[in-house]
């Protein structure tokens, strides 16, 4: 192969223009498909009697009503709820991020993990492996994930200080995404 093969020809051709047109159309279709994704459902609002937050670093079993009570009790503080399981691959990446966030910003935002669709012993081992120190609850019946309308593992729900659900992030968190959420909550 000589150098000419990696140097573009100067003369434009009709097939070249057709390729560009088709490629542009393909990009438009892809962008259109991506931007018309349905927005996340933010209709959930916790209700009921306020309950005390479970002990940090513990894995306390709660019903869906009790979990809503915990959220009500936290009104006045932004809350990030992360639903996870020990078998979930992206959870392994985002748990250290959540732990770092808790250590760096735990005084301004509450983080609650919800272990669901998992064995309690495995969830506990997962928390020990990553040295999780933020509060976690165990959703043995699956009621909590059903009430929050979970679509896949992991999912993160971001509540404003007034208790409204601001956004739902389905899938793994990145540092940038999580930090942007924090910026947004602060602003």
């Amino acid at each position, binding site marked *: 192969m000589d150098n000419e093969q*990696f140097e573009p020809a100067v003369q434009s051709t009709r097939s070249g223009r057709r390729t560009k047109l088709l490629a542009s159309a393909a990009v438009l279709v*892809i*962008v259109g*498909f*991506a931007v018309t994704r349905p927005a996340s459902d933010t209709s959930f609002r916790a209700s009921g009697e306020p309950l005390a937050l479970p002990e940090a670093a513990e894995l306390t079993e709660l019903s869906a009503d009790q979990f809503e009570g915990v959220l009500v009790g936290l009104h006045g503080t932004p809350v990030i709820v992360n639903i996870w399981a020990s078998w979930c691959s992206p959870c392994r990446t985002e748990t250290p991020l959540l732990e770092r966030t808790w250590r760096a910003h735990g005084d301004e935002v509450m983080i609650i993990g919800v272990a669901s669709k998992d064995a309690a012993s495995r969830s506990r081992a997962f928390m020990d492996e990553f040295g999780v120190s933020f509060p976690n609850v165990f959703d043995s019946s699956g009621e909590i994930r059903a009430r929050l309308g979970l679509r896949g593992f992991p999912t993160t729900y971001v509540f404003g200080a007034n208790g409204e659900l601001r956004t739902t992030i389905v899938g793994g968190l990145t540092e*940038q995404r*999580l*930090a942007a959420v924090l910026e947004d909550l602060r*602003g």
Partner: protein
Amino acid sequence: MIDVGLLASIAIVLIVPSVFVPPWPTSAAVMGLFETAGGALMIGLVVGRLTSVAIDDPGSLTRISDLMIIRSGVEFWPGVVAGMAWIALRSNHDHIAPAQRLAALTAPALVAWACFEATCLIRDGCPGPLSNVGLRPDGLVQRMLPVGVLAAATAVGAAIATRHFHRRGMPNAQVVALALALLAVIRSVASIWLPRIGEGLTRQHKTSLAVAVIASASFVAIRVLDRRATALAER
């Protein structure tokens, strides 16, 4: 669960650079280009993902399902090095100087990276510092300066500059060093404004700074050596 935003981003990265590259002389050349650039992209992704998992969660290195979730993190610079090594190996196989082929592919590669950065618009929105003139990332309430879009625009400028210097006869190795230095500087500057957890520089920021220093030093060294060689030849 299909990550539509990420799939769309990858598709655009593959399609758009080919739109802005003029027609290639023969179909064999087009196949050679796709084989080389596509291979570099794949190798880069695999090495970048493996590096990320090895650093953050070595226990997952043996689990294919964990490795395949590229959204969880891909180390950029190890991926770039691996992609460049692939291109160099292919060049040797085809009896072409590696620097010659790497230099020819720098501009399309910069455009491809710019496309990926710009597609933050269809992934989660483009985060950055809070700003009244910015965009509102997906699901957030505040407006933010779209750092990814600004980085993409700068990278396109870098692609135009490197192609310009290449066409004006800058040595191939120097073109490659220039492109790497520009890319590393863009990523370093973008890292200042990108949101992060806690204080201190992120890993991506530190590695980009290191690459910026090494690539800039290489650029200067190649220039000095080239001038000396020219002076010796003229004597």
